[in-house]
């Protein structure tokens, strides 16, 4: 377990924890970006170069901005009046802990069966390109359609009220 992995792991988890725990929503959003960046680096650490850059480009480039915009548009940035956490936060926490316990237990139990060291897969963008338009051409087309639909949907949903109900 390389030293880099530990750093990146702590970075990501800290970011995630901050994103969940912080009081100020914008700070949460920024913490989220840190978590995204940490994940991207983890991907790079796993030699998944294309995935890492895609992660940065998509998440940090678009989703983070989206979240921040959403926060601003919904006046999220003012400090909420009545507590940041919902009334039944304890139950939620307990359940999350339970989920982690189950997953952790599953991982630890099967840890001995996991492969230790494998060769670094030599992946070039050309291979990915070929895979995308070769074996995965159908998912590619479907995702294309999905993205268009989502874009149009999001626009319509969030369109300014006045015009739509003219």
């Amino acid at each position, binding site marked *: 377990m390389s030293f880099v992995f530990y750093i990146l792991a702590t970075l990501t988890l800290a970011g995630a924890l901050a994103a969940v725990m912080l009081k*100020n929503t*914008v*700070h949460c959003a*920024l913490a989220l*970006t840190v978590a995204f960046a940490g994940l*991207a680096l983890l991907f790079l650490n796993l030699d998944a*170069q*294309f995935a890492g*850059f*895609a992660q*940065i*480009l998509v998440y*940090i*480039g*678009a989703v*983070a*901005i989206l979240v*921040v*915009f959403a926060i*601003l548009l919904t006046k999220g*940035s003012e400090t909420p009046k009545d507590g940041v956490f919902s009334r039944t936060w304890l139950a939620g926490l307990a359940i999350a802990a339970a989920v982690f316990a189950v997953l952790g237990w599953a991982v630890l139990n099967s840890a001995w069966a996991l492969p230790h060291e494998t060769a670094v897969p030599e992946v*070039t*963008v*050309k291979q990915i390109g070929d895979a995308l338009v070769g074996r995965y051409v159908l998912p590619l087309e479907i995702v294309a359609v999905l993205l268009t639909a989502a874009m149009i949907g999001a626009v319509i949903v969030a369109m300014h009220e006045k015009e739509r109900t003219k």
Partner: protein
Amino acid sequence: MSTTLFTVTADQFFVLLQHWVVSFLPGSWQPVAATVVSSAAIVLLFPILFALTTVFERKGLARIQNRLGPNRVGPFGILQPMADGIKSLTKEDIVPTTADAAVHFLAPVLLVVAVFMGFAVLPMGRNMVLVDMDAGLLFYFAMGASTELSVFMAGWSSRNKYSLLGAMRAVAQMISYEVPLLLSAVTVVMITGSLSLTKIVAAQDQYSYGLPHWYIFTPWGFAAFVLYAISTTAETNRSPFDLPEGESELVAGYHTEYSGFKFALFFLAEYVAMFSISGLGTTLFLGGWSAPFAFLSWVPSWIWFFSKLMMSIFVFIWLRGTLPRLRQDQLMNFAWKFVLPLCLLNLLVAALWRFMGDGWLRWVVCSAILVLAYVGMGLIGMRSKRLGPRSYRYAE
């Protein structure tokens, strides 16, 4: 023969220099040291260039506006940047009390880091690239993506209505123009078949009948370059698109609450972003470090790269001096209703170009399509605009 030796050494001067420096260190450290040296070179070189361009720009603008420009500090105002630098360093760095200190401080730092990261993959000369990454272009755009976030952080953290408004406009503009930027770059990738910038430059580094194979001289390449240029000016909030820090309305846009060194950082980041986006433009369309004519190939490659770079900077300044500022809705409409459709069309043309095989036919077809498209979009655009007197929807 001796000339070639000379040209090669001139060409590879920096590479050899680097090897020489690195050779002093023990073997295992060599790769790390090499990168450190190269990055140090980059980090030093571009701020100097930044300083030069500030003067270059102010003098250029002045010339355009028929005035002299700074000529008090040093001969012909050459030392003006030194003065600015010392001024910004010595100025008091005021942080508004209501501002969100951490985010306020973090914004400029993140911006500068993100911008400098771009240079890692730019081939500034023959095998003078910091990291020859297989997905170089993707890395570049990934790094470019975080600029918007830092702009937003700056705008929001200073708790100032104008700065927030400026940040929102800047981010909206940058996101709108990021899509055409990527799409125009994708056309180049489609033709060369690889994301790595060195391969792209290599693909353009051929000559036929003395003319270079630069992509700009192909119909789709030229169209893509035009769209790329437009997007870059918008990405760096320059010239016609510099609404965010439009001095007349929003004081200084998202960096109003910044002063002193942080303000300088913003300024530095803006110019370095300009250099890096122009650098990319040259590698993609103007053949990177390849010489314009075959017989000029003896000139060192990095000279071509930097000269093209400076030519682009000159164009930026030229644009700033001549074009009026665009209104926000015009800017957005222009992005989504003119630039984006043409980029998509350009993708189609590039595909056609690639699969029609050599010959004059593909030239005719591609250029015909593009010309028709431009003329058509222009006419439609012009006819719908009522060029009557300016009407203020909100002002009155």
